[in-house]
């Protein structure tokens, strides 16, 4: 049994299953909900299979068709990839269940193929071993995501989608130019080979600039976040959840990989890392303040994403002296944010479905009338605020630890202030969830699957607070962060 389990090429299945599922959805539009769900669950099963392989045999490396680098396409998976894939699978399942109830009949036939393509692209991205492949997956991901945003129709959604598309394409082109220069300079697109060959040179600096700019634009790091709030706030709720939870994490993941494998070893200068940290700090403050100012729930959540992305970049200036701790913190924050933010957007979707609006001041006793949804929002909020016990707390604690051991008081202050501001905007929502609104709206019932999907994700974010030891040891497989650091 074990042997059979390990010989199946799970990694290929992770890419092929959703892509094939997406095609099939076009063929049988009437059964699209069932087909979609089956595909998503089968994909999740493949993640478990791949996880089994990685835990037993270590890092997974697979040249597709036997070609191998530098000519063929390679798949590569270590602990970090596995964590990202698991995050995608988990969030994907909950959002899929939610979507079967959320979308009207005529929208399901468009939603499912697009979402499955997006899933395939995400999985392929997390398994990519070469930088050109990453470009292709970026484009597949971007086009699917833009189409998903446009699904809601109307002025806001179309405008948000267009803005998003332009930003995504611009980011991709900058990245592709970087790929061209890297290939020219070092003769390969394979990340592992590149990490052996790179050496400081003007080409490398140009690449670093181009690729970082492109990836930061895609990740929506302040001040390149302008496209995110309109797109994430105007999309249908499950799509907002996908975008905030998974899509922005994909480009962050690539940036992290490139930084660790290619740039960090040769870039002596601390200024790039400092700049990223500075932008991250600005994002935390700016995003939180903007979130606090919003009167509409979905915009508040979207700006909260801008702030939370900022936290991830605080790891860059800290990594030089506290590598493993800082990177573990960033990764833990990324995964916790994925679960919590997806839960929040789904909860917001429930509230909009229920009351027909998302004005925060008119939430009207939803604590009593929609307790599971309010609970989901509150639990997700705990993780976003970084209060214990939650995944967000673990991430923040590790990041604080990294900052304190280096006496980076500026970053410490940013993290504490960011937590306070998050507390302010989360409880602004929760406070109004208890009170009665001036005008009462007619309300519609919310299907149980939509409430539970949100709650499950939120509970996942809380549960992550107790799983730090196994998760961090899993991420350590293949040593993605290097071993440059001795823990205190």
């Amino acid at each position, binding site marked *: 049994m074990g042997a059979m389990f390990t010989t199946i090429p799970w990694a290929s299945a992770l890419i092929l299953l959703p892509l094939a599922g997406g095609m099939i959805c076009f063929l049988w539009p009437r059964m699209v909900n069932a087909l979609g769900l089956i595909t998503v669950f089968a994909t999740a099963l493949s993640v478990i299979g791949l996880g089994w392989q990685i835990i037993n045999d270590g890092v997974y490396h697979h040249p597709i068709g036997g070609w191998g680098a530098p000519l063929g396409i390679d798949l590569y998976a270590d602990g970090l990839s596995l964590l990202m894939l698991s995050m995608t699978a988990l969030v994907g399942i909950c959002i899929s269940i939610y979507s079967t109830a959320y979308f009207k009949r005529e929208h399901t036939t468009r939603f499912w193929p697009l979402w499955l393509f997006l899933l395939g692209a995400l999985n392929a991205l997390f398994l990519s071993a070469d930088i050109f492949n990453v470009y292709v997956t970026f484009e597949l991901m971007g086009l699917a995501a833009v189409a998903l945003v446009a699904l809601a129709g109307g002025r806001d959604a179309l405008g948000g989608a267009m803005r998003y598309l332009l930003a995504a394409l611009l980011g991709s082109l900058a990245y592709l130019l970087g790929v061209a220069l890297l*290939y020219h300079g070092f003769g390969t697109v394979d990340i592992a080979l590149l990490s052996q060959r790179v050496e400081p040179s003007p080409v490398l600096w140009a690449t670093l600039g181009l690729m970082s700019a492109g990836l930061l634009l895609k990740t929506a790091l302040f001040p390149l976040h302008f496209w995110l709030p*309109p797109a994430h706030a105007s999309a249908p709720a499950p799509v907002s959840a996908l975008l905030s939870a998974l899509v922005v994490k994909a480009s962050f993941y690539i940036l992290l990989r490139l930084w660790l494998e290619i740039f960090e070893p040769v870039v002596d200068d601390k200024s790039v890392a400092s700049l990223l940290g500075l932008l991250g700090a600005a994002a935390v403050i700016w995003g939180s303040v903007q979130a606090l100012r919003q009167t509409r729930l979905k915009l508040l959540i979207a700006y909260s994403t801008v702030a939370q992305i900022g936290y991830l970049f605080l790891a860059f200036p800290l990594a030089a002296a506290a590598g493993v701790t800082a990177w573990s913190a960033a990764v833990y924050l990324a995964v916790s944010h994925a679960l919590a933010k997806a839960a929040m957007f789904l909860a917001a979707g429930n509230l909009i479905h229920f009351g027909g609006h998302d004005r925060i001041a008119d939430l009207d006793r939803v604590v009593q009338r929609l307790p599971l949804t309010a609970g989901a929002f509150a639990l997700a909020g705990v993780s976003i605020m970084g209060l214990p016990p939650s995944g967000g707390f673990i991430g923040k604690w590790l990041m604080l630890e990294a900052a304190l051991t280096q006496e980076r008081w500026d970053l410490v202050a940013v993290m504490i202030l960011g937590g306070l501001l998050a507390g302010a905007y989360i409880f602004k929502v929760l406070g109004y969830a208890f009170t009665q609104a001036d005008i009462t709206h007619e309300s519609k019932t919310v299907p149980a699957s939509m409430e539970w999907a949100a709650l499950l994700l939120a509970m996942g974010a809380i549960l992550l607070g107790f799983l730090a030891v196994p998760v961090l040891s899993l991420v350590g497989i293949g040593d993605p962060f290097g071993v440059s650091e001795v823990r205190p």
Partner: protein
Amino acid sequence: MSTAFLYALVGMGLFSLGLYALIVHTHLLRKILALNVMGSGVFLVLVALAKRTGEIQPDPVPHAMVITGIVVAVSATALALTLTLKLNEETGRAELPDEQRESH
């Protein structure tokens, strides 16, 4: 070497021109065109750099990349044009609408 380098420089120039146009123009069709010009610039760089020093045969890998890139660019342009048309139907203008309004 120098010819290839010249082509690469022209490619860089196209990329920058496109970037400038993308930022400056408000009409969506112009923005889409600007992105295509940028894309062509990148492809030109790729093709030019494929002719590496001292080799008679050009390197096929960048060519393969360019072909993939063109396919991607075509699909992206198609999506962008569709969105532009939809926006035009909705708002009567082929421009990005203002940021989302605070209240309905």
